[in-house]
């Protein structure tokens, strides 16, 4: 049972880590919680599902879903958030929640509310490791998550665009002064964060199904992970996501499965009160 829960935890944690990246990247450039990120996760999965129905090859369908997620994030930014730059953060928050209501119900309107299973080439195969059986799709999730993390790390640190995104997270206004188009950076940030979020949704689709409200709790967990890792800290978010998944699985297995979702919330509270800069964050001096 221990190993079972550990594997479940790592798989869940990979998903949370991928989700957390989206929250953290958006926080970096705009300092607000994009509550509609969970719907990007759902949207990506649905588009993949739809492409599969059209007999698209499975890899193309997955890539299509990721691209659709990126587009969704980009459009969200361009159509709503960009027009609210001067509005208080609270307004952005409400707008984000409004968008998430719209997207959830739009998905239901288009595709219906029935949960559907996304195909995975690996799902029906188990691998025996010792006397443990591990589903191949789980291994696929873990490997892909690691690949994405490395790729993202390389992008941020090795490419010019990545460095610009990083600079923007320090000070978006300064970026503008340096001659980098801030709006362009914000758009790119949304697109990348959303692409990763959509990927999370696609990976989860074969296991926990695809349905309009799938993003709600995934979003909350991803967001919790991003706070755990320290808002704005990308590697921190990844590790925190993994940690959250494992803690949650053990709590559900050994304490109570009904309160599974409460675990993340308790951790969130604990972090906020005891270490608001996150597990991996640095203390920032506030100037009076």
């Amino acid at each position, binding site marked *: 049972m221990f190993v079972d829960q550990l594997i479940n935890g790592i798989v869940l944690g990979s998903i949370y880590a991928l989700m957390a990246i989206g929250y953290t990247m958006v926080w970096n450039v705009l300092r607000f919680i994009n509550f509609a990120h969970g719907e990007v996760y759902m949207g990506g999965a649905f588009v993949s599902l739809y492409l599969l129905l059209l007999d698209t090859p499975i890899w193309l369908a997955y890539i299509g879903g990721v691209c659709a997620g990126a587009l969704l994030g980009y459009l969200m930014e361009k159509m709503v958030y960009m027009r609210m730059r001067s509005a208080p953060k609270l307004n952005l*928050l409400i707008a984000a929640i*409004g968008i998430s209501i*719209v997207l959830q119900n739009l998905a239901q309107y288009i595709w219906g509310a029935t949960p559907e299973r996304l195909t995975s080439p690996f799902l029906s195969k188990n691998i025996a490791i010792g006397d443990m059986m591990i589903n191949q799709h789980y291994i696929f999730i873990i490997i892909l998550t690691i690949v994405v993390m490395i790729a993202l790390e390389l992008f941020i640190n090795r490419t010019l665009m990545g460095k610009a995104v990083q600079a923007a997270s320090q000070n978006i206004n300064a970026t503008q002064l340096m001659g980098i188009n801030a709006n362009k950076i914000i758009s790119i940030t949304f697109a990348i964060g959303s692409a990763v979020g959509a990927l999370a949704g696609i990976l989860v689709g074969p296991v926990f199904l695809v349905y309009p409200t799938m993003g709600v709790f995934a979003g909350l967990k991803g967001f919790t992970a991003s706070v755990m890792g320290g808002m704005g800290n990308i590697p921190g978010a990844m590790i925190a996501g993994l940690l959250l998944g494992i803690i949650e699985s053990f709590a559900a297995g050994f304490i109570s499965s009904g309160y599974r979702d*409460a675990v993340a919330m308790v951790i*969130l*509270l604990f972090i906020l009160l005891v270490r*608001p800069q996150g597990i991996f964050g640095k203390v920032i001096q506030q100037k009076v």
Partner: protein
Amino acid sequence: MGQFKHRGFLKIGLILAVAALFFLPLGISNPYVMYIINLILIYVLLSLGLDLIVGYTGQVSIGHGAFFGIGAYVAAILGKNLGFSLWINLPLSIAVTALIGFAIGFIGLKLIEEYLVMATLAFGTIIWLVFLNWTDLTGGPMGISGIPAPPTIKLGSFEFPFIQYHDYYPLLLIFVLLGILITRLIIHSGFGRACTAIREDELAAQAMGIPVFKTKVMMFTISAAFCGAAGALYAHFLHVVSPETFAFGMSVTILTMVMIGGQGSIAGSIIGASILTVSSEVLRETPELRMLIYGLLIVIMIMFFPKGIMGLFKISKKRLLQRNIQAKKAAVEKEGLSYEQ
């Protein structure tokens, strides 16, 4: 002197208008419309409560749906299991909600801005999960139904039973008016002004001797108590409570009412609650599109009226006030008098 007379008229007008409100049911034959009006009244109470902490004190909570739920569940549990009436349950609901509100405020209000938002979200979700999972007490996902109606009120030979929605209206109206009155009394006092000062500039407020944390916690507690009262009324009005009503969506709905109506404004709370309740009910005609349109409405409103509907009037009122002063100044200077009133 003329101004005084003007004020007197206003006061009489206001009293007449409020009195007229009580006779509103006479003009409404459709009980469903009455039901919606009653629902609006409950939401007004919720918005007033949330506005106290969000609008007047500047501390944002997206967990107030949980306080609404605590009030409702306390009334439901006591009403269903012990047969207590609304008159006992209401004060108990308020007390329990205030107590929990105080505890949460005490822990959470050390945080600021987005971090407070996150913490209230976490608290709200945890409380909702308790509603959902503490099956022995709360009925779990099934909720509690069969909550008794308030007992018949007897005034001499007159009897006011609670059977139809028309019967609930005066009761709910009284509580809403009471809520408005208390809100007004609070905001026009040292305490209320302290809250506004905290909203505007915490550091400056503290330098004026305002105990910032204590004031915030107090206001948070009152705000929770308002929602608790609304919850108890809701439970005895609808006779059923179930957890999903008090999930994150409810917290968002109340906050949206406050934002769309206009923060820090009693009229705003009333307008916000009315718009969202009516649109949500009207949209029941198209169940498949209901939430889609509702969501769009929220996004559009928040994009185009960032200060809420009362914000529009506030701007024009401000301008009016200033224009008035300017005109007076000019007049006074013309007459060569010193400008003093």
